[in-house]
Every structure is written in structure tokens, then in C-alpha cells.
């Protein structure tokens, strides 16, 4: 029964991938866009899909894997439903972005080397610069920018986010 389910999911996954591949005419030079769209759907790039994409585009799996691991945006590990990107650009750095990152991780119960919460709700990353230098230190939660952070403000924002997502995992699975 479990096997069947898994196969069903896989074929369904490939259906989506096929649609994305078709949209790009199976054009090798669109590889980055293809991977971006796949990741937008699955929140990461599953290995079997990378191999599938390679076959479909007529390139080696190593080539696709090479591109997927080159760019910071791509992840081969599942990411959380919500992305929290703490900016560590120069302006944010000199204004204490490291403390913001520390606070976010503390609030979510993540250790220093962990990025994603076990319930797959949140992923925390640092980014080089989100271009919100005038609001330093800043972070982005999904597409929303929060600026002029301090410990207290960061804590409030993350608490609010956790509150909003209570029982959210059931919801996330259903999506």
C-alpha cells in the first residue's frame, strides 16, 4: 500500500515536471528557469527529478547536478514552507545582523548548524544582501521585508509567525 502511494506521488511529480519541461520546449539553455520552477513547486530539487530533467533535455545528470549545486538558490534538501532570509549584507552586518540570526534561530529552536525546523515549516538562511540596506538590519520572510530589527522586534515577528502557523503542518501537507 505504501509503495503504491509512493509511486503515485512520483508519477504525479513527473507530470508537473513534464508540464514545466514542455513550457520551456525542453530547451537546455532554460535549465535554470526549469529548475527554479520545479523548486517553486516542490520547495527543493529531489534527486530523481534532476535525473529525469537530464534525460529529458538530453544532457548528463552530472551537468544538471552541476548547475543545481552551483547556485545558492537551489537546494537538494527539503526546505520549510516559509523561508526566513536574514540579510547579512555589509550594512546589515555592521548593524548587528548576527544577533538577528541568533534570535531567529533561538525562537525556532534551531541549533547553529541547522536551517530547517523538523516540521518543515520554517527554513532560516542568511543572504548576502536583499538590497534593503537603508533598513538595516533586515530580513525577508517569504516575500515580505522587515527592517530596522532589534532583538525584541525580531522576537515579536517570529512569535507572530509561529502563532500564524499553529497547526499549519496539516495544512502544508494538504497543499
Amino acid at each position: 500500500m505504501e509503495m503504491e502511494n509512493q509511486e503515485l506521488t512520483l508519477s504525479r511529480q513527473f507530470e508537473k515536471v513534464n508540464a514545466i519541461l514542455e513550457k520551456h520546449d525542453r530547451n537546455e539553455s532554460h535549465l535554470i528557469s526549469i529548475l527554479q520552477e520545479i523548486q517553486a513547486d516542490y520547495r527543493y530539487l529531489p534527486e530523481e527529478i534532476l535525473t529525469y530533467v537530464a534525460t529529458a533535455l538530453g544532457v548528463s545528470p552530472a551537468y544538471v547536478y552541476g548547475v543545481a549545486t552551483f547556485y545558492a538558490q537551489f537546494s537538494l534538501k527539503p526546505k520549510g514552507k516559509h523561508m526566513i532570509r536574514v540579510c547579512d549584507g555589509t550594512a546589515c552586518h555592521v548593524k548587528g545582523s548576527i544577533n538577528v540570526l541568533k534570535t531567529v534561530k533561538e525562537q525556532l529552536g534551531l541549533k547553529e548548524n541547522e536551517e530547517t525546523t523538523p516540521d518543515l515549516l520554517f527554513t532560516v538562511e542568511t543572504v548576502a544582501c536583499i538590497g534593503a540596506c537603508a533598513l538595516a538590519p533586515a530580513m525577508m520572510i517569504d516575500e515580505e521585508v522587515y527592517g530596522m530589527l532589534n532583538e525584541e522586534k525580531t522576537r515579536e515577528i517570529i512569535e507572530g509567525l509561529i502563532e500564524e502557523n499553529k497547526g499549519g503542518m496539516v495544512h502544508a501537507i494538504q497543499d
Partner: protein
Amino acid sequence: MPFKTKEELENHIQELKREPVTAQILVCGGLGCLAKGADAVYKRFQELIEKNQLSATVKKTADNHQPSLKETGCMGLCEAGPLVRIEPKGILYLRVKPEDVDRIVEETLKNNQVVDDLVYQEETNQEIRKWPLMKDVPFYRKQMKIVLRNCGSIDPEKLDDYLAHDGYLAFAKVVTTMSPDDVIGEILKSGLRGRGGGGFPTGRKWQFARLSKSERKFIVCNGDEGDPGAFMDRSVMEGDPHTVIEGMAIAGYAFGAQEGYIYVRAEYPLAVKRLKKAITDARKAGLIGKNLFGTSFSFDLTIKEGAGAFVCGEETALLASIEGKRGMPNPRPPFPANKGLWGYPTVINNVETLANVPYIILKGADWFRSFGTVTSPGTKTFALSGKIRNTGLAEVPMGISLRELIFDVGGGIQNNRKFKAVQIGGPSGGCLTEQHLDLTVDYDSLCAAGAIMGSGGLVTMDEDTCIVELARYFLNFTQNESCGKCVPCREGTKHMLNILQKIVDGRANGEDLDLLIETAEVVRDASLCGLGKTAPNPVLTTLRYFKDEYLDHVYNHVCVAHVCNAMKEYRIDPEKCRACGKCARVCPVKCISGRPKVPYIIDQEACIKCGSCFEACPFDAVLVEWRSKNHES
């Protein structure tokens, strides 16, 4: 629409300009203001306009081409957002909250009065001066807007708003009345240099590509603004996307490219959205597409989103990324102007460079040359950030001094603290000091001081910034972003980072400093692309201008800025210690010892400065002390 001839476009623009505008409310929709609640301010204006039936003055034109309430791109003074401007008077209101909107409508729109407490206040010699007009505000006084001419004045999502500011007139002019050589000639004469940092003459680049014979050519706009601390290109793409498109179309006409790519960073979703809309609108209006303005010239554009790699700002790496490959640079020659995208001649210009082009065509090269210096004509946009008072976006004539830029435009250092250093050009640039404040801002003089113009990030620092830690930060960045293709950059930056980490951790000795300099020089001289060649700049300039701080870290274990944790000392105050033993239990390296009734002691040699004991002590007996130069032990 679509415009079939230049005359049709001109007539439409005339019509747009004829529309009477009684009052325009511009709400800044730049990232800074949005994050501070500009949306709520905009909505409140909308509500009040409807409720108050200001239709006679405001709402009437809102349905026409020129909306009277609009959300614009970045106005620049992000620090004081949300910003609201009332035109045509030019009144600028700062830090506007939704509840202030009622007063603005009542007093300014109905009764022609300025709302006093929302305008800029300048404190000089115990006197407070108020500046209600935007042009008088100190931040704007020394600015000159060419690139940002429309940014903050137009609604970036409305083509007509761009057209009303002579949009696409320059493109119509070149296509119908100028030969490609005329266009290149004009740009050459203007002396426009690449604003992405390198400063290569734009006209020369176009000329090379024009001389390359090929059936296909490409123009690429580099919007991969990866420098941490820079957001100028973002503001242009978000605030005035049509300028970028028009600049690219003119470039395409000049050297014979009919296809263009705009490469935008993945971190800029709003820029992507606005550019996409602008391209669709321009296509519908016949401003890009086939046989433009009744000529045989066709031009169209595609947006490519980056996927997060700093090295893709390097032109050959950027091309590889557009082709769907790993974004690794290639040796030049062949230059992209000869062999670029898929082997066809390609010109890569920066967003800001292209935004200059339409205005140069409209106003002429001589006009452009009247700003800036002889070797660096025109203006430059800067993203002011760090410990500066007026954080935001500014455009100043080249040749302005750093002092004017930081203290007059930028308003000086926050909280009246002391200026320490300014970092120009991001991770490829250098740190300059007090002694450089009278340097003029242009390509050549910055280069001579060891910094670079870069794309325009300007991060100001006060005494609380540790220069050594900052150098480590930049190296950490470039090391992470090194693509790994060439050895000097891949291995060299790694070693440099290790040494810097040792210095910051207080584990370095004198030999490490020499090795750091030597490695830096090798990386600079032997790397393949700009990323590696410039990566040592932050280290070399700080070593040159802040040698003492390095020496303090290495020999005295002192961090004057009180940033580097290893330069701290934790001690137990014997008076306060009750010998409870909590500190010893939490210490991860077991360096605290003691026994009942005797104050505990921290072994300084073994302490890793984690601060656990400090947090655990219920009696505040653990003290943190920063080592100073005349510290014993």
C-alpha cells in the same frame, strides 16, 4: 496605440502633458517606505479622497492618463519614510502615518497650508530650520538626478506616466533620424563610462560590437546587483523600468542587436515583476517588437532571473548563466563584443549605464558633459547605508568630495558619533579613512587610493566597527562566492580567510600578517576574473590604512571597537561570588574551578569566551572586560 510613427508618439506625449493637474499626491512605494507602512498611507489617501469628494481637485484626473494619487518608486530618503510628496508645489512630508493623512488632505489639499510637523527639520547652531520643499532639504540640495530622474516621480507600472516624461522619445529619435554611427558617436562624445564598477567607456564597447560582423547580436542588461550594501540598480528597475528598456533598445539599434536579455537577481522579485509588466506594455504600444516606428528595425527582450551567485555579475559568468550553465567566468579575449552569448557578439551594460542613455540622446552629449569631471562625466548613484544619518539613495555629480557626500548629503554619522571609515565598492572595493574625505568621487581618484567606484554601495562606519572583523567579513563573502574555477581565487581566498579568522580569534602571530599580504598579492595578480582580482582589496586597503588595528589584534589581543569576542576577558568578582558553582557546571571547557566558600576562578588560557558563565551567574559576579592596550597579563 500601438504607435506606428514617431509623430504619433509625440502627439500622444503632447496630449498627456496638456492635461491639467491641480494636485498630485505621490506616495513613495520604494522598499524602505513600504517596509515602514507606506501601503497603509496610500490606502488612507484613497479612502479620504473618495469620502471627502475631492473629486473636483484630485479624483477627476485620477481616471485619466495621469493619476493624481500614485505610488512611485524610491524617492531616496529611506531613513525618513514613508515619504509623501505633494506636487506641483513640491512639498515633502516625512515619516507619514496613516493618521497624518487626514491633516494633509485637510490642510494642504483643501486649504493650501503646509503641515508643519511633518516637514524636514534641520538643526544648526541651536536653531531649528524647517524645509517644507523637497528641493531645499539638505539631503537633496547637492543631488543631480539623471539616472533617477523619474524614480520617485512616476508610477512605475504605468507606461503613460513614463511617456508623459518624454519616455521613448529618445528611442524614436534614434530609430527615425540617426544612423547607428551617429548614436555611438554621441555616446562616445558624452564620455559615459560603465557604471557597474569597471568604468569602461560605453561608446567604445558598442563600437567593438558594431564592428563585429554577425547575423545575430545581443544586448544584455546586467541587473545582477550582488554587492552587499548596494541597491541602486534595484531602485531603478523597480522605480523606472521603462528607462532600462529604452536604454537597451537604443543600444541595440546602435550596434545592431535585435534581441536583449535583462538578467535580474533572484532576490529582487519586485524588480522582475515590474520589468515584466513594462515589457508587456511596451510591446503592446509598439515601442518594442517588429518594425519599430515604421522602420526595418526590430527589437525584443527577455528577462532572465538569476539563481543566487555573486560571480554572475562578472560578464562572462553572466553569459554562461543566461545559457543555462554554471555561472563560471571565461578568460578574455575573446571579449563578449566579439564572441558572447552562444558565440554571437554581445554587449553587457549595467542598469545604471543604460538608464543614462535615453537622457544623453535627448539632451545631447554636451549637456551631459556639463556635469561631473573631464574624465568621469555625468552623475553616479550611491546607496548610503551603515552608520550614516540619512540612509537612502542619492545621485550626485561625479567629482563631489567624499566629505560632501557623507556629511552634506548623508547628514553625517548617526547619534553624533565619530566617523571612522567608509567602504566603497563592496567586497571588491576598499576602506577609506578620514584622510581621504576630501578625495573627489570619480573613477580615477578612487582607484588611486586603492578603492574602486564599484557599483555605488557606500557603507559608512563609526568607532563601533572593527576594521579587521570587517575585512574578515568581506573575505568570508568572496570566499563563499568564489566559483572554484581558478586556483589563486579558490585556494588563496580560503587561506586569507583562515588567517583573518586567526587574527580575529587572537591566535595569529606576526608571520601570519606577512603571509596574509603575500597571499593577497598573489590572489590579486593571478586570478582569472574580477572577483578574485579584487577580493584582496578590502584586506589590502585596511592593512594600509588601519595597520595599528591589525597589530593590536595580533600582539596585544585588543579590539578597540569591542567587537571581536576573543579580545574579551571574563573574570569573577571575588566580592560578589557566593561559590555556588553554577558557572563551573555550565562551562563547556571546564575552565572554571573552585570549591565551597572560596570564590571561583576562570582560567584565562583555556577560556573560549562563550559567555555561558556570565549568563548563568545568579549574583552578577561574572564580569566582562575588554582588553585595552595597557592591560597587564
